[in-house]
């Protein structure tokens, strides 16, 4: 069922290239030879059932989890072979939006945004830190929350602040782990629009994990269905909708 990659409108070498990646926890094989390419300016959506290993895949990409086998290249570098210093540098090019936002709850919104800058001062590009924070908060529409604590924010606002914290280093790639989970449909739609907007504004490529097929339809240039720890099938939303396979069709019900 593995369709060859056939969308010629993406040029150049992929930003992320994953070949035959395997990952298990004890006896439990989660990823079992997974493949993926992410190209420049692309929105690639991965769907899969709960517990199928989507979050684990994203964590492998930034080496929060070590892979057991296969190869994983990000921005031309093999993730497994990097030293800690090289890894930190690379990670500043790869934004990660966590499933539950993961804002530091003892810090204000300003301090949350300052945190990534403390190790990557060069990223502020000589800009005044305060104005960089303001500008980034404005791009997610929450400039007024700068002195608030995460506990004072709603779920949707937290998601936006988390996105701002990711954007502040101007990453080339952003990994979204279920950006709309736990939000009502209207807020979810706002987050989706925001993702598309910042993507235009900052020219990033995105790898988006979701359960939400509406989100997938609106956002994706291309989709991958993750089943049994492999890239079960890939293509555009329309391509996949037409696939005659019980397990693929289940996602479109």
């Amino acid at each position: 069922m593995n369709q060859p990659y056939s969308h010629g409108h993406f040029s150049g070498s992929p930003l992320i290239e994953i070949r035959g990646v395997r990952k298990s926890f004890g006896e439990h094989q989660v990823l079992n030879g997974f493949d993926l390419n992410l190209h420049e300016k692309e929105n690639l959506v991965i769907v899969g059932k709960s517990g199928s290993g989507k979050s684990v895949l994203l964590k492998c990409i930034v080496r929060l989890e070590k892979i057991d086998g296969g190869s994983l290249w990000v921005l031309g570098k093999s993730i497994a072979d990097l030293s800690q210093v090289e890894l930190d540098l690379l990670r500043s090019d790869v934004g990660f939006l966590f499933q539950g936002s993961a804002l530091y709850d003892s810090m204000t919104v300003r301090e949350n945004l300052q945190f990534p800058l403390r190790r990557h001062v060069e990223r502020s590009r000589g800009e005044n830190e305060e104005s960089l924070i303001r500008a980034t908060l404005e791009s997610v529409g929450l400039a007024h929350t700068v002195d608030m604590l995460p506990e004072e924010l709603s779920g949707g606002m937290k998601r936006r602040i988390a996105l701002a914290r990711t954007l502040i280093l101007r990453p080339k790639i952003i990994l979204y782990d279920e950006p709309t989970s736990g939000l009502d449909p209207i807020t979810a739609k706002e987050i989706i629009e925001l993702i598309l907007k910042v993507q235009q504004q900052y020219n990033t490529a995105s790898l988006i994990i979701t359960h939400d097929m509406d989100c997938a339809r609106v956002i994706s240039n291309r989709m991958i269905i993750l089943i049994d720890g492999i890239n079960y099938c890939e293509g555009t939303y329309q391509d996949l909708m037409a696939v005659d396979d019980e397990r693929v069709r289940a996602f479109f019900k």
Partner: protein
Amino acid sequence: MVKPLRDLANFFEEAGKIARFAGRFLQAVWKPPYELRELFHQCYVIGYQSLFLIALTGFIMGLVLDLQTRPTMIEFGAESYLPAMIGISVVREIGPVITALMCAGKIGSSIGAELGSMRVTEQIDAMEVSGTNPFKYLVVTRILATMLMLPVLAMLSNAVGLFGSFLVENLKGGVTPVLYYNKVMNNLAFGDLIPSFTKCFFFGFAIGLVGCYKGYYAKKGTVGVGAAANVAVVLASMLVFVLDLIAVLIADIFYEL
């Protein structure tokens, strides 16, 4: 396997993991970057938060200890030895241990719960991907802060405890402040302070270490956070007694010499 055997095996496995965690701390603590700002912040949080609690418990301990021993000492006609006796027992033993136990409850649980909730809400992962080493930023600073603050808090507890005992002596026995001070100080050698201070340092290390270890590796879910805080307190309190025993045995060898 039978259950007691399995429990024993788990115990040793856990002990090994904590030892490895301590080893990681000892390696990381020397290497830059040093998170000095966070260290000072933690010292402030840990010291300041516990100030009132430690002072209150120390005061009551001194007062009660004096009240309890007084009748017996009078019976033996040894009333005038009371300040010296209380001074030695508070400074050598009761002050440090009470302080450490209170801190195990207060600081150990709060570190366990804080790091535990940061773990399960992926804040620790978020730190890691943003280029800050979470072990250095969260663990090293907290362990160092408890190590530094515990001796300070114990000194406070000693002072306040002696003041409590002085109040009793003054009200019941008419002992003047100067007389009380002299009686305590004549019998307290510098050699009493050093072991007391040193063991507080280790108590602080144990409390910080266990709290951080339990929180840092908390299991997913809210149950995990609760368990982290709970086990941290129990384990830290137990370690305080074990370390105290070791410290007293070592100090005893020196007194013999």
